[in-house]
Structures are given as C-alpha cells and as structure tokens.
C-alpha cells in the first residue's frame, strides 16, 4: 500500500478472450461499497498487461475473473509475468468456473483463494481485507 494512500487497491481483470463480465462487475461494486479502491483493467487483457498494470498502479491484490476454461494457461502466465517484475508478493485471487482439481493446483502454484460461482461478495471482501491486513 502506498504511504500517501491509505486505501486498499485491488486490480480486477479478465484475461483471455472471455467476455462474461457479470461476476467481475458485481465484485467490483462490492469492493467499492466496502471502501476498497478498484482498478478495473477491463476485458481481454494479456498476462503481461495484468503485470504491467499491477506495477504501474501499485496494487495490493490482483483479482482475476476467468470463465473460459483457460485458467490453467492464463494464471501461471500471469504469475510468471509478475515474477519477472519482482512482484511475486502481490496476492492473487481468482473467480470463475474453476473445477476443484484445478483450484487445488492453482493454490499450490501461488493463488491465494478461488471463488466459484455462487460464492458471496462478503467472502471476497473479507479475503481482500485478510490479505491486506485491513479489517474494517
């Protein structure tokens, strides 16, 4: 967190080609409602764009929304991209259609939490608070 800005900043993005953005907008709104600042990178972004934005915007958490089934390719690429920039400490959370087996693998590879369809917004907010040590 930057010293001048006491608010938690979360980068939200939809990597890959998928355009199902209902979930990411709901999460964005829920985070904002709880006083968290959201940088919404938008749709169809590449792994490098995610890492670049994370650096430029000095965010505290990265939230990725993936419904396309491409998570096992896209998420590791993003983690790699972050490592190249020395940003491997920024926690990553992922929401979307992620089978349990893949969720386990992604968690072993450094993803902090996975939010499947039907999860509550409160859980997402609580997770971000926990990851940034900023309980309301």
């Amino acid at each position: 967190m930057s010293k001048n800005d006491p608010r938690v900043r979360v980068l939200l993005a939809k990597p890959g080609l998928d355009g199902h953005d209902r979930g990411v907008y709901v999460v964005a709104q829920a985070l904002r409602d709880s006083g968290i600042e959201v940088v919404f990178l938008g749709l169809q972004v590449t792994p490098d764009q995610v890492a670049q934005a994370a650096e430029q915007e000095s965010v505290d958490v990265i939230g990725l929304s993936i419904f396309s089934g491409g998570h096992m390719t896209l998420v590791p690429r993003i983690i790699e991209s972050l490592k190249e920039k020395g940003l491997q400490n920024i926690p990553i959370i992922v929401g979307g259609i992620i089978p349990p087996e893949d969720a386990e693998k992604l968690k072993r590879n450094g993803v902090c939490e996975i939010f499947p369809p039907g999860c509550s917004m409160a859980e997402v907010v609580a997770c971000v608070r926990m990851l940034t040590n900023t309980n309301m």
Partner: protein
Amino acid sequence: MTMYAGEEIEKISKEKEKWEKGPLKLVLDKWGEEKRSFETLSGKEVKRLYTPLDISNKEYLEEINFPGSYPFTRGVLPTGYRGKLWTRRQVTGFATPEETNKRLKYLQKEGQTGLNIVFDLPTHNQLDSDNPLCEGEVGKDGVPVDTLRDVEVIFDGIDIGSISTSIITGGPAVMSMFLALAQKRNIPFNVLRGTLQNDAVSLYYTVNFRRLPLQTLYKLTVDVVEYCVKEMPHWNPISFIGYQIREKGSTAAQEIAFTFGSAVEYANALIARGLNVDDFAPRFSFFFNAHNDFFEEVCKYRAARRLWARIMKDRFGAENPLSWLLRYHVQTAGCSLTAQQPMNNIIRTTIQALAAVLGGTHSLHTNSMDEAYALPSETAVRVALRTQQIIAHESGVTHTVDPLGGSYFIEKLTDDLEEEARSIIEKIDDQGGMLQAVSEGWVQKQIQDASYAYKKDIEEKKRLIVGVNCFEVEKDELPIEILKIDPSYEELQKKNLVKVREQRDEKMVKDSLDRLHEAAATGENVFPYFIDASHTYASIEEMMKACTGIKG
C-alpha cells in the same frame, strides 16, 4: 366484452372484503405470515391472492384469444404440443471438430431432435486457433473452427439437409463455411433448416464479442440476414438473444425489452435496404432464458408473444400472420446453477424446463448439472436431455394447450410483464434505438444495476438459494464427474490448421480474399464473397481481416 363485469364483479368484490375481514384476518391475527418479501425473482410484488378482480378489465378475444390466433398469448399453434413437441436441442461443442462430431452423434442416438453447435472463444472472436491471443482457450468452451475443413469434420456423417441446425455465433464466417459445405454436398440452400444466432448488437454488450466496432459488426450481420432471407426460405438468419441478457443479470422484463430493442433495430435496417417487413419477419427467431421463478418465466413467454405480435402489426404494419408469430428457443438459466451441491442443479433445471414448456417454447436446451464447473460430461448431458424427455412423455403437461391460461395470477402477471417491457422499449426509442442505447452504455447500466441488486438480496438472505446461503453442507464432496479438455487438443487443432494452409491453393485464397476486400470497400453485401472464400479454405481471421475498413 370484458371477462368479468357488472353485478358479478361487484359481488366478488364485496365477498372479497368479507373474506378479508373474516377468515383471512382471523388467521393473520393468530399466525401472521412469514416475514419475507413475497416478490418475483425480478422484484415484482406478488399479492396474497389473485381473483377475477385482477383481470376484470380483460377482453378474452382481444388480449388472450385462442392459441394460433392474434395476439397469440396462448401460443402460436392451435394444437400446441399435441401436434408437435418442441425440438430437443442440446448445445454441443468442445475440444476439436472430431470430438464434437462424436458428441453430436451420441446425442442424436439418445433422442436429440435438433443440432445446436457452440464455438470456442477464438472462433467467436473471429481469430485463428494459432493466434497468440488464443493460447489456452482453443476448444475450451466450444468447438474451434478455423476453416471449412473444421466444419466438414463437425458434420461428417450428419445429413444437414434433413436435420435442423442451430449455429451459435455471430458474424458471417462460420455461416459461410456451413453454406460452402452444403454446396459441396449438393444440398440446395432452400432445403436447409436451422438458425444462426448472429445478433451482433446483443453479443457486443452481453458477452462482449467486440473485436470489431459495433457499427461494423452490425453491417456484417445485416448482410448475412439480407442474403439468407432472399436465398434460404427455411432458415432463420438471426436469433435475437434474450438468454445472454438474462445471464448478465437483467430482470425478466428487461430480457424481453432489450431483445425486442435489437430486433426492432434490425427490422429497421432491413426495411432501409428495401425489403418488405413481411419478407423477413417470418424468419426472425428469438432465444430466451428460463430462470428460477416458475410463474414469472411462464408469463414472460406469454407476454413476449403478445408484445411481439403487437409490435409487428401496429408498429411495422406487417400483414402476413406469420410475421406476427414469436418463434423462440429457450435455454435454462446457466447463471442459476450452483457449484455447491451440484446434483441439486438437476432439480433447478427441471423446474426451469417445465416453465419453458408451460410457457410454450418451440425448442429447448436443458443445462447439465456440472455447468458451474465445466462443459457437460456425457452422463450429465444425458440426464439433462432425459429431463426434457420425461416432461415431454411422462408428465402429461403437453396434453392441453397453454394449461395455465386463465389463471387469475398468470393473466395478471402476463399483463404486468408486457406493460413493463413496453415501457422499457419506449425508453430505448426515446434514445434513438438500441444501437444508440448500447453505444451510450445505458442498456449495460440497467442490467448491471439489476444484477447487483439481485446479488445483494442473496447476500442479505432476502432471497434464499439452497446450498448457497441456506442448507449448506460442511464438506461438499463432488459426487459428479467433470469433463476435462485435454490441453493436447489445442496443439492438434493448430497442427490441423497448419496442414490446411499447406494443402490449399494460396493463389485461390488470395484472389477470393481480394474480392471480399473489394466488396467490403464498396459497401456491397459481402456475404456471397465470404462463401466463395470459404471454398478456398481461407481462415476465419483472414476473412475478417479482408473486411477491415468495411463501408456501409
């Protein structure tokens, strides 16, 4: 002549007052009612009781009438499902054209009666499988199509001249490959039956297929519709997409209104090209969602049928009765299915499918229980298909036409939904039409607000979702198998594309793309040039590139 009038209605009114002061008050005083809001999923208040008083102003012949008669509230066919059941049409497409072909044949063997092909994201986005942007997404949530070769494989051993085919993607490329295949098999266009989704306006703001500007996408799709209307009398060249609008979080009335907003926009465009409304309206097709609120969904279809008939007759002056008919496909709500206790999704799908059937759908896809995890496994998709078959053959609900018609509640809710949808359409008109309302983000904002309100209701437990915010289980073991798409399929698809490129006649490809480019530049209808280019095995991305700078 209204349905209830004069002395009869006065008598009912007085008796209702007595009932309220008498037995109702007694029970309310003693036990009260559950302190939760009684409203539809879309937030419409539901009264304790509906009586003839709620529909006393209705005129049966004007507003409800017989099935097969204007305004078709009770259905477009006089015989309902007694004459013909709806088409059982499961969405299919994954991994590779080869795997998809196998699944299509499996579903045909299990009693599916229409094909319904869905494509992967690279194909929807008009990109070739080996474009770097597509890495990890080839074959993941649909079948990849790069060239005519893939369409040949998908339909290998399937007679596209005799079964109806639904093609779920926008843009001209895939459709042009389908027609090239028909030509290669000597099947005349005028026998082909099926539907192309093709509603670029809706796809642009719902699932965000927007690699080209909205105006360009719109022009391309109008070209396809114009061509098909002229050459393919049994084909529906466009299906207006309410399904995705609802999946994005809209209310039931918004689903109707935004779908019709898009249809009105296309109708205007076709009229501007010199077509008569009665030339194309009978080939317009629609695609709606079936969400959880049983009665609201039944009424949604009844309201939509009536509203569309009125729009066609009053607004467009259509004279051919076939132009007044709302013909539509329904898919149960994917967004309603939960990752928690996934077998419960079978029940949700059953309720939704029943609403679609009692609402009079012409074609149906039932979602599989594993929707919140992946594309369906063979077992899951068979259960989903069986759900339809049990409703069709065992439940008896198909024996009479519009069995819920005449219910005070159903007729009232149908009225209310029609009225709300009509007022939203007026707002779209005020903004200059759907293209404008989408360009300005107004439509998207309406849907986002509805979606957020819905999610908040769940969060605050105003709305209960079994397994999600009530009746949770501590350890939710996954009792179902999940379809895995082997990553090697992506490599296989790319290899096949390279092979096609090596084997085709590059000069022929280049010439056909040059002709397409020229047509695009002059503002001519580009679709015939797409078909020609498909024959040369030009790829989807090459064809779209040839349209850069398209005029019109």
